[in-house]
């Protein structure tokens, strides 16, 4: 497969406050693959998505690096879904209007053709009695159903890349399992690539082929997901895994907290941003940010003292 998305040394800043939100992020994603982006709130994972989608909010600028989509001349289609589906949908439009306008814009479908395709999409994302639901408004749907509508809307564009920014964070665990399964099915069916962003390593573990861990605007580790979870090399990645509570009844070990707090972007520590909270930190770590290094095949880590596997 060819490279679908290539992000190199992306820098995103908010010039008014002088804050660097994303600092030199590089990512790549092959067609049909799933890349997970994981980190705590404020680490820049959503902003990375907005920069890729070209939809940075007002006052935030891409000040460096590049985002390259597709290898050839044809620009691939991107679609995006968000955390809070109910506020992403326009409350004054029906579900049918919302989907049919998207189908018209992206596929040129009109009238009955658009309606039939909208019904087919709703059925595909698991909404029953789809025909009568076309006249419903978002407030008549649950959060899980609205997220399905968002996914149907994304599919109307026939995207080669779907960016899902915390798509199940606001949903119940049972609905989350349903939506994750749906995303996986659709990815396999359509051959689109998926960029999934989550603070929950469990979600990443279930969907992603590769995953990147972000901390304070930088990627600290990238690896195939099984390798990242089984042999994390960056102390932050390891700490993040250790503080995930387990449901295994035999595992009575409580989640191990990471000391300290995530620093403010306005007040980042010198060198590696994680060093004040890191048990392995040395003088070197506070001097300069470590360059990412490939420690194993397609496993990169930005750390002077990676955890030995």
């Amino acid at each position: 497969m060819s490279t679908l998305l290539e992000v190199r040394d992306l820098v995103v800043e908010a010039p008014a406050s002088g804050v660097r939100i994303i600092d030199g992020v590089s990512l790549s994603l092959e067609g049909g693959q799933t890349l997970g982006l994981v980190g705590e709130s404020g680490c820049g994972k959503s902003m990375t998505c907005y920069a890729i989608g070209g939809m940075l909010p007002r006052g935030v600028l891409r000040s460096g690096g590049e985002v390259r989509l597709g290898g050839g001349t044809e620009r691939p289609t991107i679609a995006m879904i968000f955390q809070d589906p109910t506020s992403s949908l326009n409350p004054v439009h029906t579900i049918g209007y919302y989907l049919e306008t998207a189908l018209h814009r992206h596929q040129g479908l009109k009238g009955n053709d658009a309606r039939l395709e909208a019904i087919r999409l709703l059925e595909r994302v698991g909404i029953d009695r789809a025909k009568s639901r076309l006249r419903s408004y978002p407030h008549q749907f649950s959060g899980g159903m609205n997220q399905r509508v968002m996914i149907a809307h994304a599919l109307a564009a026939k995207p080669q890349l779907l960016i899902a920014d915390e798509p199940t964070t606001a949903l119940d665990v049972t609905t989350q399992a349903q939506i994750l399964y749906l995303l996986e099915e659709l990815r396999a069916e359509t051959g689109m690539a998926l960029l999934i962003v989550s603070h929950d390593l469990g979600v990443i573990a279930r969907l992603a082929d590769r995953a990147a861990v972000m901390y304070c605007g930088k990627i600290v580790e990238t690896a195939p997901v099984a390798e990242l979870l089984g042999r994390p090399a960056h102390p932050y990645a390891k700490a993040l895994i250790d503080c995930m509570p387990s449901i295994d009844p035999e595992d009575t070990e409580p989640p191990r907290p990471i000391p300290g707090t995530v620093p403010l972007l306005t007040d980042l520590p010198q060198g590696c941003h994680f060093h004040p909270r890191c048990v392995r930190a040395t003088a070197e770590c506070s001097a300069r940010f470590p360059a990412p290094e490939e420690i194993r095949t397609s496993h990169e880590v930005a750390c002077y003292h990676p955890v030995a596997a």
Partner: protein
Amino acid sequence: MSALLQASDLTKAYRLKSAPFARPAYHLAVNAVELALEPRERLGVVGESGSGKSTLGRLLLGLTAPTRGEVLFEGQSHARRKPGDWTRFRMRSSLVQQNPLSALNPQMTIGEQVAEAVQVHRLSNRAGARDRAATMLEQVGLSSGMMNRFPHQMSGGQRQRVVIARALILDPRLVVFDEAVSALDVSVQAQVVALLRSLWRERDLAYVFITHDLRVVRHLVDRIAVMYLGRMVETGDIRSVYSAPRHPYTRALLASVPTLDPTIRNIAPPIRGELDPGRARQGCAFRSRCPHAFERCEREVPAMRQLGSQQVACHIAEQFNPAPTRQMEVAR
């Protein structure tokens, strides 16, 4: 030992919007719940949103009156409490909610807010209350230097610590936590979990921990109760429920939790559909989503019964024995 808190036949009905002169319709947010909590016991209440777990928490604290049934705290019923009894009850119980920023007063300093309860109950003078607040803040891992800060000057994790300090300053016997760690980042969440575990060890304190997060609750409680559409469907000690869930709903909930095992993927979701309040009228409320439902589930509400170390409300709970593994459930 006598129970600290006891609820029997606890029911809360909310009237639904209906046409004028039509027969009124009701939604049973909490439906005939039986519950007993010993001193120092830690109980988790889990279920999807709309299962009635938050309403249950409010009923237990007497923040809303039940439609039927009663709650006894240290042997005294909420229904028979006089204003003075309520004051005493409020000193011995408290609530911690999800969003600390909205729970805190933006115009009061942290010190004032934590000390407020001491002054309201006239337990100490101003200086004494301040000292107590400083000690309490230190116990939740905040330096007393934070006393003069305002909530907006703190991080989310620090604010939740302040709310916990405020809830514990009068040394209550019962605290209800309603999604108290759900909104926190995982690294901070783990800190608060460790804090709640250590605070409990040092005190004569019982917890009711209401959450939709089955992972966190596992490390905070001794016993768990699973709710579905207002009814309790399974309860038991956390280890046995998590290792051998008996109710099909508990099994589905546990199987839905994403784990850190990347080999478990691309598996069919354990249950379809969403909560359907219309089903609560008769029979088992879970039947529309239950893969095992049969004719009896349509007409008869399953009674809560003892099965091993657990109590389960399912007609065919025996079928799910012995300990099925997570993978078996998932492969179904």
